[in-house]
């Protein structure tokens, strides 16, 4: 039995390490970050993960070893001890210090991510969430929302690359979650208030936008795309959309 237990714990360590080692190669991992602060978040994540890995291997390995040792038939009687205050103090102090260090490491990035909250930075686009669609409202030529030249488009959020993009999130009905894994950006869309968030994408491409807050039975299909394009392409697209809104539209016979 003790062999089996040792094997089980060994297998557990192996399985956990294996699953984390092979994961990035198989795409069972965060997609490559394309936003400026995404790299910082990944760095924090990796730091924590390394700490976790050491702690995990140490504790489970220790557990397995202790069980292996404790089940020796030669052991006649267990050690009688009620504890060791100095040891308790030591590991409390060390763990506490480690946790505090980890916590303090988060602060600057957290501040940076949340920098736009309530600062009144001028949003490029207004994200309108409703059961079960994302719609994006752009301010049009005058750069002002709620004017006659605003235009609106579902599904696809088009933004320029290498620019700080501020978005304003609004919901018409229930809480939705605006999540773009590649941008490392997630913010609940709260009905009744307009929250702002920001990102700066550095790689053009098309990225999935996911609703992460349960919003009803159609929640699972509330998908969208974030399309990051060059400034020139963005302007051209903007112009094309505005033209469509000023004319008959692209009519297919």
């Amino acid at each position, binding site marked *: *039995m003790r*062999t*089996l237990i040792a094997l089980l714990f060994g297998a557990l360590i192996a399985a956990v390490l294996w699953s984390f080692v092979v994961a990035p190669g198989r795409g069972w991992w965060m997609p490559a970050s394309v936003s400026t602060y995404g790299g910082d978040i990944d760095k924090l994540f990796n730091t924590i993960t390394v700490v976790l890995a050491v702690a995990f291997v140490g504790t489970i390995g220790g557990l397995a070893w202790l069980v292996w040792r404790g089940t020796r038939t030669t052991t*006649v*009687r267990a050690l009688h001890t009620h504890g060791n205050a100095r040891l308790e103090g030591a590991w409390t102090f060390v763990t506490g210090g480690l946790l505090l260090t980890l916590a303090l490491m988060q602060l600057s990035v957290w501040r940076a991510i949340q920098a736009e909250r309530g600062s009144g930075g001028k949003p490029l686009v207004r994200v309108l969430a*409703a*059961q*079960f*669609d994302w*719609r994006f409202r752009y301010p049009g030529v005058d750069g*002002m*929302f*709620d*004017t*006659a*030249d*605003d*235009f*609106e488009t*579902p*599904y*696809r959020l088009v933004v320029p690359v290498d620019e700080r993009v501020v978005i304003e999130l609004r919901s*018409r009905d229930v809480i939705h979650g605006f999540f773009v894994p590649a941008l490392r950006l997630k913010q609940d869309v709260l009905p009744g208030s307009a929250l702002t968030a920001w990102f700066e994408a550095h790689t053009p491409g098309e990225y999935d936008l996911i609703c992460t807050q349960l919003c*009803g*039975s*159609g929640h699972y*299909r*509330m*998908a969208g*795309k974030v399309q990051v394009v060059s400034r020139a392409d963005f302007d051209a697209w903007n112009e094309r959309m505005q033209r*469509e*809104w*000023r*004319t*008959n*539209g692209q*009519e*297919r*016979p």
Partner: protein
Amino acid sequence: MFRPTIRERRARTPALQRATAAAAALCLCVACGFEPGPAPLEFSLSGATQSALEDAPAVRDQIARELTTLFGTPSQPAYAPHPAWDAAGVDLNQPDASAGAPYPGLAAAAETYRRECLHCHGVEGGGDGPSAFGLTPAPRDVRLGIFKYTALKDQSRPRRADILHTLEQGIAGTSMPNFQRLAPAVRESLADYVRYLAIRGEVESALVLTWREEEELSPEAVGEALTFVWSRWAKAPSKLVVYEGEVPAASKERIARGDALFHDPLKGNCASCHGTSGAGDGPAAWKIGVDGQREPAYSDAWGRPIRPRDLREGLFHGGSRPIDIYRRIYAGIPGGPMPALGETMKDGEPLLSSEEMWCLVHYVRSLSLREGP
């Protein structure tokens, strides 16, 4: 001398391991070759047909058989070839794909429909899927062939482009989402499948009507019903409401004029239903019900009470581009009380000129915008 009372019995480790390994291997074997699927579907007759033919089960069975001959089943959906198609130069079973990508075909579209649409719209497109309960507005029952949001006039049946437009844009303000995440060719096939369901539903009710009138269903009568239904769909492309050139600018004057037209009972008369502030609370649209509560005065073609849109929300079911709203004013909403102002004549003259309708469009849009009236 210390002796434990409970001796740990030596578990038979090898046996345990072997059992575990065997179980795991078995699971793997089963898992590899396992691919579950959905059970096949069948079309059933609509509730209206069932109740109309309650006393004539034989006719009911006959109609069901005819429909299967003409349209196949959800697993093998296909139109029976129709003579009118040759004249029109179309083959509905081989629709041309304008997207260029390989066209999935009706059978594949049925699979897509089953995954994406059936939960709300039901197997037959009756708007009665298991998830339809409680949705306001209720999912469209396409079996009447009436589609509310098209770019067409004369209450026409929709073109494929109209159905596609709804699939691409969704219907803002309802639970109908957009389907842009599906490839364009898949969306086109889905639009074709929706048309297929609509035609099937229309033929079904036409057959019931034919039987009511003639008390029998001859093959000729069936063919006539099909021709009649198809002819309505064939007319659609010629009915597009087009506005050439740029949309007139949303100037203050136009908005003011739109305001006047909106409230003028002899011109737009919009306020009678949509209310003086556009809140959808106009007197004509509401009545006092038996319980003393205010309830909608009108019903739509599906028999559901219908309330005028609150225009201040800025959410337009048929699309919020100016041209979409223009078309709504011009052609009305089929199946509902919204009139087609662009086709209304007064003393031999059109009631509203194109310019006047644009003024209305800008006024209606301004209700939800910052620089409102």
